[in-house]
Structures are given as C-alpha cells and as structure tokens.
C-alpha cells in the first residue's frame, strides 16, 4: 500500500513539473509582449529590453524555470507584475472561493446521482424514463445558458437570490449560502446529468452479473444485493467518472464565476491571462496541478478500498 | 523427412509490473511433425499446448530453442520473412465466434489471404467457391455475414480459410471444443477427409484425450510446460507410461455407467495408493 501511494505521488510530482515547465516554455514566447504591455505607451525597444533584463526575462528559459521552481518549493511564487501582491496567498484565497461552490456541488451531485441512478436501475419502467429525462435535460442545455436562465428567473424576475457577488462564509453564513446557491445548482445539474447516467448504466450491468444470480439463489435479500453488492462493484468506475467530473467543474466554474461575478480561481486566471501576468499564471497552474494530483490520489485510494483487485496490482 | 521440427522450445512472457521476473510457460519442448501426419498435443489449462501452436504460427516469440519448417529456422522470423510462410502454415482456432471478423462477408474473409498471396480477384472468387464446396457449405455463403451461421458452420468457414493457400501444415487449436457433440463429430470427419485428400499435416491441440485419440497419428502429452510423454496414439492413450497421462486418462468420465464406476474405483485406488506411498 505504501509503495502504491509513493508511486502515485511520484507520478503526481512528475506531472506537476512537466505541466509547469510546458506552461513556462509556452509563456516565455510572449514575455516581450508582456513587457510592452506593462510599459504601455512609453514602450520603446530600449526600455522594453531594459525591463526584460530587470525582470530576468532575457535569460535562458531553463534557468528562469529553475529559479521559479526553487523559490516555489520554498513557498514563494513571486509577486504579481501589476499589483505587486504575493502570488501564493492570492491564489489560495481565490481557490477557496471556487472550492466553496465546487465541493458542495460535487457532494450534492454524488448523492443525487447515486440515488437517481440506483432508483432508475432497480425500478425500471416509468421511473427509469423520468430519471433518463432528467439526465437528458442536463446534457442538452449548455451550462452557460442554464446559468443565465437561472439568474433571469430567480434573481431578476423573482428577486429571491442575489444575481451576483460573493459573501465569504466567515462574514455572514446565510449570505454565503445565498450567494453560492445558483452557481451550485448550475454545476449540480450538469454533474447529475453525467453521473446519474453512469451510475444507472453500471448498476444495470452489475445486476445482470452471475454472482448476483448466485446470491439470489442463496436467499440473500434484494436490498443487500443492490446496496451491498451491486452498488459497491458499480462504485469503482463511478468514482473515476466523479474525479473527472470534479476537474471538469473547474472549467465550468470559470464561466459561472464570470456570470455571477464571483472572485474565484477561474476569473483570477482569466484576468491574469488577459493582462499577461506571468507569475500569477504560473502560480495558478502550479496550484491547479497540485489539486489535480490530490484528487487523483484520493480517487486511487478510494478505488483501492472499494476494489480488492486494484489493491493487489 | 520431417515437416516441422521443434527443438528445446522455450517461451516466456514478461512478468506483470515493473522489473517482474518473466514467466516461463514452456521449458524446452521438442517435437516433430511429418508431412501428412496429425500430431495431437494434449494437456490441461496452463500446460502450454496452445503456446506451442502460437509459436509455430509466429504469434508469440520463442525465448529459446528452435522451430524448423522444412529444415529452415522460423522461430524468430518477423515481418515480410514471416509473411512468406503464410501459404505453408495456416491455422484453425478454437472459437468460431471470434475467429471470423463479424463485419466482413464470408467471401471477403476467404479471399483476403488469397489476394494477399497475389491472386487476381477472379481467381480468388473461383477458389473461394471450390473451398466452400470442399468444406460442405453452400456457394451463396459468399455474400453472407458470419452471424448468419451456426458455430459448426463458422468452423467450416475457418477451415476453408486455412485451406485457401494450400498449406502444408495447419495448426488446429481446439477446433472442435466449442461445438456441440453432434457437430463435433462432423467437423472431425471433415478434417480427416481433407487430410486424406490433400496430405496436409495437422498440429492438433486439444484438452480432450478422446478427440485427440480419434484424429491423431501420434500424441504428445504436456504438463505445466514440459513434454511428459510422446508416442503413437494407440500406445499413449491405451497404455500410458507416465503417471500424469494415466491420471488424465482416468479422470475423464466415460459415457457408460458401469464402465465409469469401474474407472472411478480404479482412479480412487490409484489416488490412495499415491497417498500411501
């Protein structure tokens, strides 16, 4: 088990190095543009070059990357080119906002999808068609339209919830819940569409397996067969889908943060990218990769717990 | 003169996982097949009998020893050189469902090897008709897909495909194991008839001693990657030398209640004698 974790962690570290390096390499092609943007109207070839030297952007890419990596390992991700704020704390602060909508959305998705999927797979008929209908609606409507639609209905027409803005949990828990409600709903609908179909399909497959028939012939109850046996075996592939869903939600959150004017990770990345704020972009990438590694590792560990075969390999 | 000669054949598969030790499934097996002869290879799962067939076909790479066809070493041949052997060595597999591409018509399946050998489309078509006739299938089978045929008929198609390039040796890998009793007998008769007509040699792999006894001139018994006994079919299957062959022989139940009772008692007696020893 320990070698298993070590192996996974090792892969994560390599992934992190590779992704940050590739990002660095790609961004290095636009350092000149960034310098000119910073200087604005006063940009001349001479002072652009001077700025490049001052920032150290004229050195070989590998050296710059090495520098960045060494300080990043010490927890120093540099400062924003524009605001001069330290990158690390800003990213963490923004990340927390995004996680505060993604984590609830993911948990709700997991619960609803499991219930809906199991319900559809074990009841069939009308129940199944309803569940599939729900899933189809989530697929058909793009998240962007869903977000706008919900804002128009709940915030603009009914004035039940705030259209935009974010209140930190520590400031006012009730306001926090109100501010994340619509974003969470939007993410959840998309997630449930995908996940519930997965759970349903896996459950149908499992319930048709030989061992289910054998358990039935021993007098084991339907509840035990569905919950204890079929769901557990269906759980391992569903978990993998869930981890991908989590990562996808990060992409979707980008648009949702924009619609609802949430000061999250995605909008932070967007603004940094628009301005060419290279230290911030790199910090965001590094934290993103770290997060992905953690999610994958957690998934692998859970899979190992669910599926004894995975443990032995 | 021997057609096929296997000398000290070893095959090892890479172990699972990083730097795992390779897993040797054949530990130096020597065999030979004469032209027009059937050599039966019998053994249980894990005996390596199928691997021998696949090594002869060039589908697995030997890790040691030699495979000679008409005196020429073919064990490690790859690519073009190996493909040159395809009109001499052919195959009939065990599973008539997965051995035919479900999306190709029978005609396409049968003409593919002929066209690869350089036949014109017209010649190929004529040859396909002859082949279908030879294995007892109607000529309108050309236009049809494998799923329209039963297991036994599919196996006939597979035999026709193998006969296409007029090979000297056909590796038969459990060709009748998947078939129903009545079909099994018919397909075996067909294989014997074809051998008499064409003088093709068979390397016939099976787990079933009864099948092996019926079709083989000579029999080789394999156990966990080693050859334990080889000889004329009559000798090996009626007065086996090796204890494993005897176990194998006594373990198979016979379709006669009285005879089966006798055999069971004999087997149990042997087993307890083995324990006493």
């Amino acid at each position: 088990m320990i070698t298993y974790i070590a192996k996974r962690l090792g892969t994560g570290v390599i992934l992190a190095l590779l992704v940050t390096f590739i990002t660095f390499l790609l961004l290095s092609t636009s350092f000149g543009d960034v310098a000119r943007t910073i200087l604005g109207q006063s940009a001349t070839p001479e002072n652009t070059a001077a700025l490049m030297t001052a920032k150290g952007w004229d050195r070989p890419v590998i050296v710059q990357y090495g520098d960045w990596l060494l300080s990043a390992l010490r927890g120093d991700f540099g400062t924003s080119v524009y605001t001069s704020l330290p990158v690390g704390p800003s990213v963490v602060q923004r990340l927390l906002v995004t996680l505060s909508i993604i984590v609830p959305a993911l948990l709700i998705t997991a619960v609803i999808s499991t219930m809906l999927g199991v319900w559809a797979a074990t009841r069939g008929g009308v129940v199944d068609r309803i569940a599939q209908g729900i899933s189809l609606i989530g697929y058909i409507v793009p998240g962007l339209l869903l977000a706008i639609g919900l804002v128009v209905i709940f915030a603009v027409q009914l004035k039940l919830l705030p259209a935009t803005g974010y209140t930190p949990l520590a400031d006012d828990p009730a306001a926090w819940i109100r501010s994340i409600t619509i974003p969470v709903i939007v993410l959840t609908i998309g997630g449930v569409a995908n996940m519930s179909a997965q759970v349903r399909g896996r459950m149908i497959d499992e319930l048709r397996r030989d061992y289910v028939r054998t358990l039935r012939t021993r007098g084991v109850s339907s509840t035990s067969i569905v919950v204890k046996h079929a769901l557990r075996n269906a759980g391992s592939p569903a978990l993998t889908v869930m981890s991908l869903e989590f990562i996808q939600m990060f992409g979707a959150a980008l648009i949702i943060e924009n619609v609802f004017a949430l000061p999250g990770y995605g909008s932070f990345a967007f603004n940094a990218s628009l301005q060419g704020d290279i230290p911030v972009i790199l910090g965001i990438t590094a934290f993103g990769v770290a997060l992905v590694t953690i999610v994958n590792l957690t998934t692998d560990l859970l899979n190992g717990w669910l599926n004894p075969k995975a443990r032995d390999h | 003169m021997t057609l096929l000669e296997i000398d000290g054949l070893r095959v090892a598969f890479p172990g699972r996982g990083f730097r795992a030790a390779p897993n040797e499934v054949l530990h130096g097996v020597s065999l030979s097949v004469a032209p027009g002869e059937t050599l039966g290879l019998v053994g249980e799962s894990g005996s390596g009998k199928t691997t021998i067939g696949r090594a002869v076909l060039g589908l697995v790479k030997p890790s040691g020893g030699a495979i000679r066809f008409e005196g020429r070493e073919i064990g490690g041949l790859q690519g073009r050189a190996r493909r040159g052997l395809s009109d001499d060595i052919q195959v009939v597999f065990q599973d008539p469902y997965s051995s035919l591409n479900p999306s190709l018509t029978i005609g396409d399946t049968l003409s593919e090897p002929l066209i690869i050998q350089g036949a014109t489309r017209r010649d190929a078509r004529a040859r396909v008709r002859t082949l279908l006739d030879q294995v007892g299938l109607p000529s309108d089978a050309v236009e049809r897909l494998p799923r329209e045929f039963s297991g036994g008929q599919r196996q006939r198609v597979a035999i026709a495909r193998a006969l296409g390039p007029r090979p000297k040796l056909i590796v038969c890998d459990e060709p009748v194991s998947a078939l129903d009793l009545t079909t099994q007998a018919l397909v075996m008769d067909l294989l014997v008839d074809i051998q008499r007509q064409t003088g093709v040699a068979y390397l016939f792999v099976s787990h079933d001693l009864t099948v092996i006894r019926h079709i083989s001139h000579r029999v080789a018994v394999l156990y966990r990657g080693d050859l334990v006994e080889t000889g004329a079919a009559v000798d090996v299957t009626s007065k086996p030398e090796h204890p494993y062959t005897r176990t194998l022989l006594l373990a198979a139940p016979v379709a006669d209640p009285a005879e089966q009772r006798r055999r069971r008692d004999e087997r149990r007696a042997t087993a307890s004698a083995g324990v006493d020893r």
Partner: protein
Amino acid sequence: MAQPESERPLTRRIEPVTKSVTAPSTSSIAVARANGGATPRTPLWKKLLRDPQAVVTTGILVVIFALGLLTPLIAPHGPNESVLSMVNAPPGTPGYPLGADESGRDIFSRLLHSINTAAISAILGTGVALIVGITAGLIGGYFGRATRATTEWIFSLIMTFPGLLLLIILMPVTGGDYRATMLIFGVLLAPGIYRIVRNLVLGVKNELYVDAARVSGVGTLRILGRHVLTVVRGPIIIAAAFMVGSTIAVQSGLAFLGVGSLEIPSFGAMISSGFRNLYIAPTQFLWPSLLLGLITASLVLLGNSLRDAFEGSKPKPSKVGAGQRVAEIDAETLAVPPAVLLGVRGLAIAYPTPSGDLIEVVKGVDLDIARGEVLGLVGESGSGKSQTAFATLGVLPNEAVITGGSILFEGRELIGLSDAQMRPLRGKAIAYIPQEPMSNLDPSYRVGSQLVEGVRSALGISKKEAKSRVLALLERCGIADPARTFDSYPHQISGGMAQRVLIAGAVASRPKLLIADEPTTALDVTVQAEILDLLRDLQSELDMAVLIVTHNFGVVADLCDRIAVMRQGRIVETGLAAQIFGDPQHEYTRTLLGAILDESSYRTDPPVTAPTQGGQA
C-alpha cells in the same frame, strides 16, 4: 472414454457472456429465428431513417448550417455594421427583424454569421481531436506495451487538467484567436477519442480473426485499416456528434467571457452583450441562447440516436425483486405423485425479440425428481436446459416470460410467486451451483463473508455460528486451509477452489434439492473428477435430490440415477440411466449417443505422404 463434448476453454469466452446478459444462448435465439423466418439485417441509414429523433435533429442541423453557408446572400447587414440610430432597436424594426444590439448591429445578421463561427470551431476542434485521437489510439492499442505506456501517460496527463482553464492560461500564446484556441481544444478533447479507439483496438487485437489475418500474411497497416477501423468506426461517429456539441458550447463560453477579438460574431459574444443589456432590452440574449440551445440539443439527441442505431438497444432495467414475469396462463395445478419432490409440467418460457414478439425457448417441459434422486438434464446448447433450471430457482432474467405450465415443489406452486415469497425457499430448500466459478463470486468481498451472508439469510443464525459452519463446510468440500480461503478474495483462489467454495455455499443449509448447472464444464478434467466425487459424496451424505444440467454424457454416467434428454425446448426422452445408455428409444437420443467418440477406436490410416494438392476441385 466419453467426454463427448468438452467445451471447457471456450465456454469461458462465449457462454458466460451470453448467459449472464441474456440467459438463452445466442444459438438458441438463432435456432428459434431460423424456425421463425429470415434474419433481420437492416442497414444503418435505414435504421436512422426510421428513428424520428434522428430525422428531426438532422433536419434542424442541416437547415441551421445551410443558413450559415447562405449568410452572404441572406444576411441584411454585415456582422459588425453598426448604426448609431439603431442602438437597442426592438424586434420588428424594419430591416432589423430581431432588433439591434447595444452597438446598433443587426441581431439577425449577427446570428447568421455566428453559425459560421460555430461551424468553423466545430470543424477545427473535432477534426484535431479525431486526427490526434484516432492516430494515437491505433498506435497505442496495436503496438507493444512500451508504446502504449507512453501514449497512455501523455493522454491521461492531458485528461487530468481542466481544459477550459488551460485555454485561458494559454491566452497570451494564442492571442485569444478562436481558431487557434479551438485547435488546442481539439487536442484536449483527443483523450476521449484516444480511449475509445485504444480500448476497441485492444479488444479487436486479441480477437482470433486478427491472429488469423496475421497468419495469412496480412501486414500491420492492412490489418489496422481493414479489421480494426471497421469496428472502431461506429463509436467514433457517435463520439464526434457529442464533440461537435461540446466544441460549439466551449467556443460560446469563451466568447462569452470575452476571449478573442470583439470583431468575431459568435453566440457567446451575443449572449454576453444581451446579458449586459438585460434590464434595457430583455429579449436580446434570448435569440442567440435559443439558437445555441437548439444546436447543442440537436447534436446530443442525434448522438443518442446514432448510439442506438450503431450499438443496438442497451439492456433496460427492470424492477428488482419483482419475481419472474408470468404471462396469463390457466391456473390449472396438475396433480403429481406425493413421492415427487419437484414436479414440472408443461413449462414454457419465452423471450422477446427486438421486434417485440415472443419466441419460446422452452416449449412444454415435464420433469419429476423424487427425494434423494439424481436427475441429469442433458441437451446441446440452446436446448433450453439452463432456462428450465433457472425457472425452478425463480431467477430467470428479467426479459424472460413464463408462458405456461406449472412448477410444483413439495406440492407448492412456484410459478407466480414473488421474489419475497421465493426467498425463504432459496438456499434453504433449493440450492444452486453455477457453471463458471469465478464470475459467480462477488469480486469485492472476501469468500468467507459472502458465504456467511448466504448462510445467515437462509438460516437466520448468528454471525459466529455461521462462520464456524462455513469453515467446517469448506473443509468438508476439500479445501486444505479453510481459514485462509475464508479470508481470501475471489481473485486470489483458483477456479477449482472457487467451485468448491460455491458448492460449500450451496449445501450450507442442507437443501432438499440441489440444482447444478454444468458444474464441471469450466474445469480441467482432473479437477472435474474431484468435483464429481465431492458432489456424489455430498449427495449421499445429505440425501439431497440433485438436478444436473449438462451436455456431457460422461458426467451423467458418473452421477445420475435418471436422465432426461432435451432438444429445442422439449424433453424427448426420460428414463433410468442404464436404460437410456443401454437402449435409447428416441432417435435424437440415439444420434447423441452415436456422436460420442468411441473409447476403443483409433486413427488407423497412415499419413498420406504424397500431397495431391491440385485435385481439390
């Protein structure tokens, strides 16, 4: 020696699949179909034409994208032609059918131009994804482990990163140009295609027909093109439909955020501007939203239709614990002699065909088993013998319908009982041993805990008591180290041992009737002999009645008191074992027994040494 038809190794590949999915083997359906008429072979496009969902969505998409192509001819204004006096003009303004936006640009014209932006995005994104994904999938799937490990690693790396975020981060590189962005997005979509192709190729590569092609001298490229791509085609087309939808949605999303040139008309940019204007002109965001929604919805629905057409209908769920389906039949209970433990009368079982008709696979079966008697139910594949056994246990697959007959166990009618009513009988009075040992154990639980659960369900005893009972049984069933096996997972034990475990589970509650469905078919001969010994000993020890379903006359001769021979859903002959073997009455029984390869005959003709290869015609 008679082991007439040992389909051992093969059953592992074919039978379990058909058995666990739809219980009658494919051959029985084929037989039924051959009796009932022609085999349906509908071309794909015909199937699609018959599906209204496919026709309508294709129609919508064709109209929309045709409008896009005709834009230069039909659009009244240029996409960026702004007229100050027309700022936020309402719908219906002359020359501005849907009104104008905040910059005074015609919304209708911009919509038409946006269709083209969407189309270009879709072509670029999907195109790159397909090219990269298919190429890498073929390479990764077909070639050796090292190659696969590399492609695998690269694609899982791409897959684990949030795509949209990456597109944003790379904005300084792409300059926000939507075409460049979509090319990168295509690469990000490629892992999906890669996985589909790689999995299919890995599957196909191990198919024997690919081996046969290689033996026939077919080169690698030709194999990939001819044998592999044909199989991969369907799933790729389905995936492409969904990918076109997601590229368009992502392009809109990015444009909504404001990535890229403001000059490029796109749904996202229009929605964004309409959204900003929500309070001034509430309908502005509606038009692009509707069109975008229509396009993506059509693509998803079309993708679903394509999936149905290519892959056929997927298994449908049905109510768990509902009991077997029974057609309206006369509730006429026939009398059976009191000595009979299980009496089956006129049992008929049918399965629905894709067209909805019912096809009978069991057509009126009569069977009697006395207490303590061993009955062999013999037949070839597709004869309906397993179906008969499943019906008795009450575990027919959901699609199956009992169309007639009666199953009496100790005088009690079993047909029509609900799952809950059957449960007290199962395990306790009637037990089951399956064919395939491995697939009949739940892979996620230790062997012991599965057995304990069964024993407790049947007998309602304490956990501790159940455990000691199971341990004793494992030992009785010939397992050398019961405690260790008890704590093992199914994948850690051998097939023979798994079959012993299943036998222990079946006899744990001393059932009156044991139904064994081909209990030794998946095993090696030497293991088979040991399992047959075990079954015989347990039978006499517990004085169980046993119904053995098999195709192997050797097994029958070894164990059975009486034999019933089954063919195409009917029992053709029943009798004592000695009678059937010694003096078979029915012609089919004689054929079967005649097909058994003789014990004493050997190949006598010498090898033909002079090939007569020309003379085959």
